[in-house]
């Protein structure tokens, strides 16, 4: 589903974010990207939805080479790849419903489609009862559920989560991860970049550790501290 081939990334300020990364993520796989801050986790994710382009190497998403993807096709790529951020990135002027509906409306979905799919997805993430509220009226966990609903409403093949529990308490974090596991069970590929050791250790999924922009370890059913010696 996602393939990194010799991917290196150097930012304009000279920082080497990624170096010769080779990684393959299968369809419907659940993968944790771990590593301390500044090791390249977010950069690796940002290459998938073409927010940044590697300096060398290539990224393939759903058998599509991103280096050959014209700029006009990037929105279509982003509808296949749902993204959840640590700071939620919700539109503050829109309600929960409108935030989720917006991701659908920009694809040209009909009003009937919006009316049918938005309640379902809000129900799935457990935020339907707050659909008329604005993001600033919600708790961190509720905002993250809204962000997940928005990422899922277009039935993406891949769900990328960049520190999804970074701003949440342990209980809410567990709920969010349980939700991501349910989504993965329905066939969506889920990649989670995280610092949250407890969650990684409890879920025992594939763990990839990045150190200085290189893949240091890659282990099925791994733990947070695998490969640290």
């Amino acid at each position, binding site marked *: 589903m996602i393939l990194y081939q010799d991917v290196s990334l150097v930012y304009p300020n000279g920082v080497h974010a990624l170096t010769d990364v080779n990684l393959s993520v299968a369809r419907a796989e659940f993968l944790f990207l771990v590593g301390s801050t500044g090791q390249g986790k977010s950069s690796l994710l940002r290459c998938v*939805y073409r927010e940044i382009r590697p300096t060398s190497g290539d990224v393939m998403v759903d058998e599509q080479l991103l280096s050959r993807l014209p700029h006009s096709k990037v929105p279509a*790529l982003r509808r296949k790849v749902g993204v959840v951020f640590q700071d939620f990135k919700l*539109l503050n002027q*829109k309600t929960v419903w409108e935030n989720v509906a917006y991701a659908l409306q920009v694809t040209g979905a009909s*009003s009937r489609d919006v009316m049918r799919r938005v309640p379902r997805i809000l129900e799935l993430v457990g935020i339907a009862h707050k659909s008329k509220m604005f993001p600033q009226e919600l708790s961190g966990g509720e905002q993250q559920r809204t962000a997940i609903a928005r990422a899922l409403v277009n039935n993406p093949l891949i769900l990328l989560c960049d520190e999804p529990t970074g701003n949440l308490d342990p209980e809410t974090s567990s709920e969010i991860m349980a939700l991501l596991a349910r989504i993965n069970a329905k066939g969506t590929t889920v990649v989670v970049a995280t610092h949250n050791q407890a969650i990684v250790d409890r879920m025992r999924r594939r763990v990839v550790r990045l150190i200085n922009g290189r893949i240091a370890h890659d282990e099925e059913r791994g733990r947070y501290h695998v490969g640290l010696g």
Partner: protein
Amino acid sequence: MLDWGRVKFFWGEVAQNFTRNVTMTLTAIGTVAVSIVVLGAFLFAREAFDNVMRSVVGQVVVAAYLKDGVPLPRIAAIVTELRADPRIDSVRYVSKSQALSDLRHRLRGQVDLGLINQNPLPNAVIVHTRDPAEVPGVADGLRERPEIEVVNYHSTTFQKMVRMEAVLSIIGLGIVALLLAATALIIYNTIRLTIFARQREINIMQLVGATRWTIRWPFVLEGTLSGVIGAGVGLCALWIAYRAVEPKIVVNLPFLPLNLTSVPVGHLAFELLITGAIVGMLASLISVSRVLQAA
């Protein structure tokens, strides 16, 4: 084909932004309104001033004084020929007795014309052209007629007035151009700031898969609407000011041939409304495109 679902979505976004970003919306509308008031007031004043200049220059007539002894049927034939000239608006024959009577009337109480026992004034034809620029040509034509003794239209004064009208018109046009550029820049900067304040929002729209035009359209429509509403508010303020000031100008400056009712107010209002709409639309389009490019 027009996709009504998309149109509804775009206008829904515009309505949402108008009602939920009230401060920014009011800032944009207010700026457009104030700019349009300044521009509109100047355009109105320029139009009124041009009218004054046109009216002053338009009062110039050509007086052709006939030689003594030209028979009346010949004079009638000359008047008929002149009336057939497309450059000429009106022709009036003033007989020497009529001229003396007019002079007596004008100088009544100042000079005693009873001492004159002979009428020294000639018969005359007074010609008024359709366009003041035709005055010299018509005067030259009259001079070539053998029946005409002297042709007078105060040519030096007339040419100075025409030159002054042209110079003032060019200066006015220059000021309009500068004012228009300043208005456009002020509106553009305000709308640019309101859009830059929503940069984060635009980035999120891109992240969820919105195409550039899906993001642009609501902003462009919003900018156009702000421009039209702002211009409308500005025009209302101008209309109220005009109604309040116009009677006072007429009473206090009676010596000026200001014919304010002849200013094409409707036409000016339409131009200002279109200016507001176009500047609002372009300002939004350029600003949102810049944010999208930077993303």
